[in-house]
């Protein structure tokens, strides 16, 4: 009896097993989706490419199922995953070619016994880079590519190899507590690689430099602990991966994608169904939908980011003053914010845009104003709690000014709930942006933005439904990713609120 309980517990806390289970379920789901889509009911025929995908995914699923059983028996027999089982993970790495992110990340997890945060960062930096290369390579089927295409692709390949090399180095030299001194050099290179938008590289570079310099062990430990908690949450990691991927794609798209495909009318190719030249088809002006969606990511991320950061700063400052000074200040600030809070965000945005016109800046302002009260409330609650702590008292006794106390002592300690809140509301901002664009109240219609594409798609719903389906799918995935990441961050940073 005792051993059974022991094994059950072991299964629960062994990350590989949990992850294997998860990968199995998701691979199975995707295979079933492909199977359902592979048969065209209206024309009674099979879609060969989709069918091929189905076979690849179902084989992956079976293989993962086999690995799951093996891990389980290993844990039951030896209480640990054997080396041979880990070796079985290597063939699974090849599934990256099929775009199965679940199985690839599981494979990376399985093959290495030591899993520092750096190892995971390097693995995801590598996967992200390969995905970027894959997506950009689809441009090869177009009639022409941009001048910078070859250079950029070469750079991406070099970066991918660099990340792979670091992945191996991380398993060999980096431990949970420190890294060799020479790791500073790749660390700096990684931070420079941020300009491609691959934030996993930034994270990896930052933690390598931090570990190699060995200046502040407690900071390293804190950083490691936080990331271990976040990385343990599989969905949060996938959310982070998708966000970084979209971000990196929107940064690099200007080098590998031609903006003209997304905006110039091409009357020779109106409303074409998906093909290799136009992977997602074209719209009613013959504009390539794939390029439009890729460029649309830029707008969504920019608007989402600014309409989150502006109210977070303004609302945070108001909430901090309100919570710190209390009494009349608190009353005046919070009662005036109650007025803003009483109007639903999207209605206030509509009113502001009605008054000042529809363009990107106005949209950001309109979405920001409505979100101020929620941030102010979160910040105020934190500050009220914190301002009773001893460290605030001692800062006051040492003669620190009010501003110094608020911004040096209280605000840094109440950032965690704000970050969680911000992550969870970026998704909402992305949805609001596209909703307003869909109503004709957001981004100018000629700019490729997901809501604008959907607006066009809605008029061709009956005949060319793909125009409406793909951008919506992108919005949903991006918002879902932010929500997953937000949930993960909340569990990691702020366990009380869950």
């Amino acid at each position, binding site marked *: 009896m005792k051993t059974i309980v022991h094994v059950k517990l072991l299964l629960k806390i062994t990350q590989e097993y949990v992850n294997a289970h998860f990968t199995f379920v998701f691979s199975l789901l995707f295979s079933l989706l492909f199977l359902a889509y592979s048969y065209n009911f209206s024309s009674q025929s099979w879609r060969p490419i989709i069918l091929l995908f189905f076979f690849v995914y179902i084989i992956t699923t079976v293989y993962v199922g086999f690995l799951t059983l093996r891990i389980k028996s290993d844990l039951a027999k030896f209480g640990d995953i054997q080396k041979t089982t880990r070796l079985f993970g290597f063939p699974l790495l090849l599934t990256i070619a099929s775009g199965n992110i679940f199985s690839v990340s599981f494979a990376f997890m399985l093959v290495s016994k030591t899993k520092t945060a750096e190892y995971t960062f390097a693995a995801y930096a590598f996967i992200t880079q390969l995905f970027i290369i894959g997506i950009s390579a689809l441009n090869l089927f177009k009639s022409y590519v941009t001048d910078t295409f070859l250079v950029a692709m070469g750079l991406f390949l070099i970066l991918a190899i660099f990340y792979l090399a670091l992945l191996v180095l991380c398993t060999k030299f980096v431990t949970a507590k420190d890294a060799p001194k020479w790791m500073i050099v790749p660390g700096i290179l990684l931070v420079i690689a941020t300009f491609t938008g691959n934030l996993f590289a930034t994270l990896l570079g930052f933690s390598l430099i931090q570990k190699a310099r060995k200046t502040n062990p407690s900071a390293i430990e804190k950083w490691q602990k936080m990331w271990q908690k976040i990385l343990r949450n599989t969905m949060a990691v996938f959310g982070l991966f998708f966000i970084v991927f979209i971000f990196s794609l929107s940064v690099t798209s200007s080098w590998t994608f031609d903006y003209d495909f997304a905006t110039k009318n091409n009357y020779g190719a109106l409303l074409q169904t998906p093909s290799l030249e136009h992977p997602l088809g074209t719209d009613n002006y013959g504009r390539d939908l794939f390029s439009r969606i890729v460029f649309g990511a830029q707008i969504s991320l920019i608007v989402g980011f600014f309409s989150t950061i502006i109210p977070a700063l303004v609302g945070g400052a108001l909430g901090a003053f309100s919570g710190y000074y209390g009494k009349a200040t608190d009353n005046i600030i919070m009662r005036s914010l109650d007025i803003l809070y009483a109007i*639903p965000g999207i209605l206030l945005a509509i009113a502001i845009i009605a008054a000042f016109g529809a363009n990107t800046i106005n949209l950001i302002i309109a979405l920001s104003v409505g979100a101020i009260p929620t941030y102010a409330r979160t910040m105020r609650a934190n500050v009220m709690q914190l301002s009773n702590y001893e460290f605030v008292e001692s800062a006051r006794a040492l003669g620190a000014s009010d501003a110094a106390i608020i911004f040096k002592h209280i605000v840094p300690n109440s950032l965690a709930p704000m970050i969680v809140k911000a992550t969870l509301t970026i998704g909402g901002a992305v949805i609001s942006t596209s909703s307003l664009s869909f109503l004709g109240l957001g981004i100018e219609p000629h700019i490729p933005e997901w809501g604008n594409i959907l607006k066009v798609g809605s008029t061709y719903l009956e005949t060319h439904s793909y125009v409406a389906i793909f951008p919506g799918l992108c919005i949903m995935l991006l918002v879902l990713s932010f929500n997953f990441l937000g949930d993960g961050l909340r569990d990691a940073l702020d366990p009380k609120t869950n």
Partner: protein
Amino acid sequence: MVILKNRSTTKEHVFFFTVYQKLMHLRPYMLLLFLLSILVHPFTYFLYRKRKNSHVYKQRFEQQCQHYKENGSYTKWKCAFVEQEQAKARFFGEQLSEQQLQTSATSLAEAKLQRIVEKDLANEGLYKQSYLQFFGQQLKKQSFIAITFVPAILFYVLLLLFANPFLQYVIERILQSFIVIIGVATLVFTILYLSPFDPARNLLGVEATPAQVANFNRIYGLDQPYLSQLWHALSGLFTFDLGTSFAGKEDITHSIANKFPITLEIALLSLLMAIAIAIPVGIISAVRPNSYLDYTFMFIALIGLSIPSFWQGLLFILTFALKLQWFPATYNPQNRLSLLMPVIVLGTSITASIARMTRSSMLEVIHEDYIITAKAKGLNEYKVITKHAIRNAMIPIITVIGLLFGGMLGGASVTEKVFNISGIGSYIVDKQFIPDIPAILGGVVYIAITISIVNLLIDILYAYFDPRIRSKMKKS
């Protein structure tokens, strides 16, 4: 000065006095009460002056001071203060002259004397009375109330109303909502007033002569100063007379009244659907946390939260209306079935939010001590959950539902556009291109008022049902 009698003859006496005392702690009420009883004040003030001249308090005060000075306590305190001041000067390395030392010690000693004497007199039942306190004391007298009841009727009505803490809470909450609504109307009007667009130009076209534009502005009062326009808009909102819209010349209140029911109907049906689905789902998830069922439910809930409603609407139209032809694609008042898709689309995100909220709230409650106690006493799980956990977990959920309802009414405009429903949301969107200031103002403010009323009702019900809030109100 008055000698307090702790025993009062009848209950009625103390009633007005205690309520008065309670309200006098709050500054706004102090002012309000004073204003309402303004007719009585000349009379009572005269009484007060007359009483004050009787000097009993002053005499007794002097006497007590003399007593302390004579028995040597005063000199003792003074010496102690001198020592204290010297020690202070030594510590900070300051030089104090003898005279400075004496003055500060004397003032400190005087202050202490005053404090102690006041305390002594209070023990004897003697108070130095301000006018307002004197006025309060008068309320204990039946004869005083009888005489002043007619001139200060509003004053007594207020006291009667505020005698009950629950009633006081309700009145305060209503007042608060009213102020918020006025604030909302002012804010929305100001935003529209600041608009750089010119409705006259947009409607009359570029070729309109300046005279035509001026005429248009005069008809709709757009040439008046900000404050008069604001007053006009506010009074229009509360008298349900917003005039006619710029375009089409239709009566705005009338069109809003026509369009509001359908929006409200869809919103309420969505809310009902959300509650019916989300609460059981949340409870099941919380009772079996981290099970397959829980993961599946929460995953679906997160998808529901992440799906843009207009896209969901398009997908629904594509599958259920165009491909399967089960439901009509657009709303049609004659066909009740056409309401189904808009209701589901509008309710999806709120269902997801409530399910997630229910789960976390239930999980929190399930780990409380009283649940463990109930289990330890041998109650079966079903009873523990239904009788003890759910009732307590519902409290935060109801508030969240109120807040989400607001968001839902706001988001209705998108759903209405997708399904071509002529509700209030699509009305606002249609009017914003001109911009038709009174129409947008009316639409937004009436929605905000509805939301405020819903939240007000929820808060009041809350205060009524939650024993914790009730006891808190009574204590304060």
